[in-house]
């Protein structure tokens, strides 16, 4: 019975995660289209209004409607998260595959690079970059910096998988069936890596948003654009807590917590679900 | 002395019930080496788990009796049933596993793994004295004592297996169960370990039960042999008699299919595949592959009958000859 309940539980974790992410996608991508005003501009609405039917979450002391500001913030945060996750997973998988499969000096150099980029703390350098650009930092530069520090995590894992694959006998069978190295990497090794990299992609979205908003909270991300982090930053700058403006400070905090749990559930749920499926298939 | 009477032990998983051991009646006598032979999936390892009373879900004993006669400190015979035997693990009955590398804890010394087996239940817990006793026993088996102070990765495959034999026998248990003890080893080391097992058994006069798929191993060291096929014992008897005069078609085919150095005569493998143990066929399980199959074989499953003094076989052919 334990096995059956296990599979159900996994699906539940995957389902919960994906439903929550779907809600956030609607929140972040669909709703901003309907925003009556450009949520980022100041003094578009009267300041410090309590929650009401017109302004569901009230307004900020900068004259912005909190609810619509939140939708813009989610949109930008998701935008950064997906871009960074896509590129770092792509680069990571590529580097991991070449290191794992090529072996020899290539492997030694690449895995050394991975270890170095993992052990160097990314935030101090991001702070250096952001402070020098003095707030003119666009989301793009932040994105690039995040990619530089995130690709080694998937690379390490993919390299481990590729290394273990290389020893497997069916790789030799493929070679003796006339398959070239490229054919082997694409048709034999990639199916094993694909599921894992989807789970890693979702997880990297989480890491990217978290790092970006960390920078934003200390005012080093592009404070002009609305992201979950900058929203918290402005709330703190204008005494969001002292002034008990719970909607203004609270909504991004709660949004981050729910979004991150959703992303985590989806990524671990999917990883275990695919392992389960593969397990059943070759039981 | 261990007695099994028509024991059925099944693996109950949500997907299916696997009838791994399906009605086995077997005795393990004192001062003998009993071989359990059979190919992969015949249930011999499951039977060993039942004998050792280490039955955990999803494996469950569905029916039948298992009784063990243990001689306690002052020589009285105590009867033990399933669930009670496990309280006397290692002193009354011990177990020698197969995989030598993965069975020893890689990060603690070999000596600690000896202490683990004794200290708790056997009130021998001052380290100095225990070390002496173990070191002395290792000398008896001419094993280097430094083994105690080293780790598993420092030993060769053969040495690790010898340590497992020493570990399983140094409390002088009355019954020792060995699950394919030498399968993972090279032929030269295998011989030295099998000889070691024989010497230990002869010195301790206890019962040694060896599970192996290699008929040659059984021929060389066992006094009695039980042949298993698809969850049942199809033939059991003194090794000499079973090999010289096999009474079950499966045993005959198995022995006949083994190539010998020095004899190039044509050897035939058995056609077909063993039946699935999820819904085994009615009647004799070997019927599908047996060249002498009769209608009767497909209806009912033959019982073990005594065809020669304590040489049993489960096949209707013997009844006709006998009648």
């Amino acid at each position, binding site marked *: 019975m334990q096995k059956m309940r296990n599979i159900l539980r996994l699906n539940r974790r995957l389902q919960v995660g994906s439903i929550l992410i779907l809600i956030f996608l609607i929140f972040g991508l669909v709703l901003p289209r309907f925003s009556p005003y450009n949520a980022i501009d100041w003094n578009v609405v009267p300041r410090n209004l309590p929650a009401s039917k017109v302004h569901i979450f009230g307004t900020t002391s900068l004259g912005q409607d909190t609810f619509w500001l939140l939708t813009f913030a989610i949109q930008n945060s998701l935008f950064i998260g997906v871009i960074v996750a896509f590129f770092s997973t792509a680069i990571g998988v590529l580097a991991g595959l070449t290191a794992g499969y090529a072996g020899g000096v290539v492997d030694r150099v690449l895995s050394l690079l991975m270890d170095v980029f993992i052990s160097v703390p990314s935030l101090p350098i991001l702070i250096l970059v952001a402070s020098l650009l003095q707030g003119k930092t666009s989301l793009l530069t932040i994105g690039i910096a995040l990619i530089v520090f995130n690709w080694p995590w998937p690379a390490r894992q993919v390299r481990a998988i590729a290394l273990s694959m290389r020893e497997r006998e069916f790789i030799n069978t493929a070679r003796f069936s006339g398959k070239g190295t490229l054919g082997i990497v694409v048709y034999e090794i990639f199916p094993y890596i694909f599921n894992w990299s989807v789970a890693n992609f979702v997880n990297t979205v989480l890491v990217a948003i978290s790092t970006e908003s960390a920078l934003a909270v200390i005012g080093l991300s592009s404070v002009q654009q609305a992201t979950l982090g900058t929203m918290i930053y402005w709330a703190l700058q204008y005494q969001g807590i002292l002034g008990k403006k719970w909607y203004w400070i609270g909504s991004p905090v709660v949004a981050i917590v729910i979004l991150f749990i959703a992303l985590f559930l989806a990524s671990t749920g999917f990883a275990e679900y695919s392992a389960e499926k593969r397990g059943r298939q070759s039981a | 002395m261990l007695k099994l009477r028509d024991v059925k032990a099944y693996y109950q998983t949500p997907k299916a019930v696997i009838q791994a051991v399906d009605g086995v009646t077997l005795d393990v006598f004192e001062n003998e080496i009993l071989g359990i032979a059979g190919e992969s999936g015949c249930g011999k390892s499951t039977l060993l788990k039942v004998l050792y009373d280490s039955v955990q879900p999803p494996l469950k004993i569905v029916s039948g009796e298992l009784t063990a006669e243990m001689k306690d400190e002052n020589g009285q015979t105590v009867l033990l049933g399933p669930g009670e035997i496990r309280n006397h693990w290692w002193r009354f009955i011990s177990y020698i596993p197969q995989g030598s590398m993965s069975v020893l804890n890689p990060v603690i010394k070999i000596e600690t793994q000896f202490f683990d087996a004794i200290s708790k239940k056997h009130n021998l817990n001052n380290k100095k004295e225990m070390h002496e006793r173990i070191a002395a026993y290792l000398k008896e088996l001419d094993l280097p004592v430094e083994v105690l102070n080293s780790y598993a990765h420092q030993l060769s495959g053969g040495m690790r297996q010898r340590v497992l034999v020493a570990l399983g026998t140094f409390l002088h248990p009355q019954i020792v169960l060995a699950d394919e003890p030498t399968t993972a080893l090279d*032929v030269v080391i295998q011989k030295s370990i099998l000889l070691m097992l024989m010497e230990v058994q002869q010195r301790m006069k206890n019962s040694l039960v060896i599970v192996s798929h290699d008929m040659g191993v059984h021929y060389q060291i066992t006094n009695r042999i039980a042949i298993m096929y698809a969850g049942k014992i199809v033939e059991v008897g003194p090794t000499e008699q079973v090999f010289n005069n096999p009474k079950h078609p499966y045993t005959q085919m198995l022995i006949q299919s083994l190539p010998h150095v020095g004899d190039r005569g044509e050897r035939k493998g058995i056609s077909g595949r063993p039946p699935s143990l999820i819904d085994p066929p009615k009647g004799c399980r070997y019927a599908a592959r047996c060249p002498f199959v009769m209608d009767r074989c497909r209806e009912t499953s033959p019982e073990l009958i005594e065809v020669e003094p304590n040489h049993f076989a489960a096949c209707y052919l013997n009844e006709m000859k006998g009648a």
Partner: protein
Amino acid sequence: MSDLLLEVKDVTKSFRIGGLVFGTELLALDHVTLSLDKQKPSIMSIVGESGSGKTTLAKLILKLHEPTSGDILLDGKSIYSAEHGLDHLDYLRAVQPIFQNPFETFSARKPVETYLYDTALKLKVAKNKNEARDVIAAALTSVGLDLNVAKGKYAHQFSGGELQRISIARGLIPRPKLIVADEPVSMIDASLRMNIVNLFLQLKEMYKVSFIYITHDLSTAYYMSDFIGVMYRGNLVEYGASDEILTNPQHPYTQLLLDSVPMVGKKWTRDIKAPDVELKEYQATACKFAGRCPFVRDICRETKPPMVTIDGIRQALCYKPVDYEPGRTTVKSETIAAS
């Protein structure tokens, strides 16, 4: 075009274990020379314990590793150097492998038949899918299987024996001259093993293909092969026709192996010596078996024994047949002192 199908010329292979700085060298193959002629298809068994180098030799012949020194020729052409050696496609059409674990031979993620179609099409045995289907059907029938039995099925839907037959069929598609089988039957139950072994014998005649059979099992080696090479710690210690080698072994190690095999019908003798010293023996320069050999003499420990030829065709890497006289490398079997 030489009259030798396969020549292994003085091949040595050493692996570096451990890192760049402190790693040690492990000598897996130590100057091995042997060959397989072309008159008629034959089966050569390479017998030895684990660590004897038999699998390394198979991997070298299968071009999965490169030798540290020496060369391997197929039909007189080196299989390694691309320019004047054998072109890789021709090599693939001439040499095919059979692996030990049938369940590892095929990926769990792809239907088994994709490998069959790849072999047929990529090795240019068939021009299109239909032609490939016929070639595959023929190969499968020759191993006792039917094409639609394998249609669209994955590896876990077959038994070990069936998978091994499919693996053999795949190897037969390009009608190779040589099949290198690394322990092909050790994972198959004893009772079913003989079906595959007999299949090898049939295919040898039917496809006129030679086999190199790597195994630790002397009995099957004796049963099915024409020649046997015995390997010990990277050296070929004895080579010759299989019925002579195993019935009248000249090298003490072959004798030790024979005495240790648990054979039905012949009880063991008790006296064997088997220390577990591993690494030290590798470095020992002279005869590597000296540490365990009952006939060892000083000469065996100091100088490397020559490869002695007996009656022109048999070979043994040992002083005993030449009565420990250095320099003598040929002898007649009658004159060998009764051991």
